[in-house]
């Protein structure tokens, strides 16, 4: 039987972003483990809903004309944190606390898009 990371890779290739959580419930865990970090208890696989919040952000500068790119830490709704990038945003628009949504881009690699905050109606069509 393969390790947890291989299982995760296979799921991503099939279009699913998996996390783990303790078998009895609790905050989600990422990256994949063989058992729960800190307790050693068994884990179960869950699929993320994809909603997340930007926990921190940095823009890596490059020599012009190459544009700067962002690197973010995202807290997923289920409780796990992962590194990522938010696509289609300017440095002015991307901020800590911003709502984002995970998507699987070519690679496959997980990227994030800006998402309307869950508590507010979208401001335009």
């Amino acid at each position, binding site marked *: 039987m393969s390790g947890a*990371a291989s299982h995760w890779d296979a799921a991503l290739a099939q279009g699913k972003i998996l996390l783990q959580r303790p078998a009895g419930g609790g905050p989600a865990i*990422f*990256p994949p483990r063989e058992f729960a970090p800190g307790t050693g208890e068994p884990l179960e696989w869950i699929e993320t809903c994809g909603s997340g919040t930007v*926990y*921190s*952000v*940095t*823009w*890596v*500068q490059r020599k012009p004309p190459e544009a700067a*790119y962002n*690197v*973010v*830490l995202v807290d997923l709704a289920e409780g796990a*944190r*992962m*590194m*990522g*990038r938010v696509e289609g945003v300017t*440095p002015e628009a991307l901020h*800590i*606390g911003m709502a984002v949504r995970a998507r699987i881009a070519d*690679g496959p*690699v997980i990227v994030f898009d800006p998402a309307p905050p869950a508590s507010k109606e979208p401001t335009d069509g």
Partner: protein
Amino acid sequence: MGDRFPRGKVAVCGAATFGIGEAPGHSTIELASKAIRLALDDAGIALPQVDGLFIALPDDLFAGLSLAQYLGLHPRFTDNNRSGGASFMSHLITAVMMLDAGYLDCAVIAYGANQRSSGGKLSTPARPDRWDAPYNPLYPLSFYALAAARHMHQFGTTREQLAEVAVSARLWANTNPEAFAKGPLSVEDVLGSRMISTPISARDCCLVTDGAAALVLTRADRARDCRLPPVPILGAAAATWYNSTTQAQDITITAAAESGPRAMAMAGITPHQVDVVQLYDAFTINTILFLEDLGFCPKGEGGAFVSDGRIAPGGALPVNTNGGGLSCCHPGMYGMFAMVEAVRQMRGTAANQIPGAQIALAHGNGGTLSAQASVVFGAADTA
């Protein structure tokens, strides 16, 4: 049980640096060996008396083996723990325990790097892990940038306050003959320097230099026969919480919040009793994070704490009195140089000597805020 430490039973009896700044034409082990030679001479101890070797080199995963061969010794114990810039504090902990137990009689801890002469870039075999790598964070810089950005968001820390750290380090360096980067540096200079990974700009970053350092440790009773007054080791603790900073529960709190209090408890002191602090300032945010985590100010107040010259020459808390990694030297794993400066302060021989200093705290950082280790040194009569 746990955290039982032989307070003051082991002392540093030799300390040296070599090739700080630029030392062209040297391999890493040649630099380390020259520092070892100087540290042994400083202690008045002959090479054959060394029976424990502790070393990390940037380019040699088997550095302990290579060093035994290079020195022509058959050591009783060899350790090349690699916890980044905190490696040497961890080496010291192992050495202290082994010396106190009588397993070893004389331990050498050493480091050497030629990264300035050999390429001019930080020399490290470390890389982002497979989960972080697809997003191309600069390693290690972007990880510190993410911590700085969150600290600024959460506590209102400003880029000007980060810049104060670099300015204070430069002021110390300006009066240290050994320091590599000298000359005027203002807050405006730091703010105007090239942005690399927001909010960290070029002058928020440590230097890239060559350099080597070595310490010689022996039991305190034996150290009294050495050439200079011994510097007793009063407490030391290492704490590791993760490797990738992505996995930090709270990126604004480092494992220094564990290693510092544990080391100070072993020494029987509180932060108020620390006369001089040497910490691994790979980036300006480090100094702020570690001063908070080590207990010199509350969490979130580090930015205000480092302002108005508090950690600069003449300030209330002398921090990185050699100029630190920001302005003295940064040959990669800087922890070794923080310890040497702490030892010099305890001996009364530092270039920027703090009069009457009795307690020095040296703090190492490894990985990307990942591994933290703190050592409390005392003046000769504190043991």
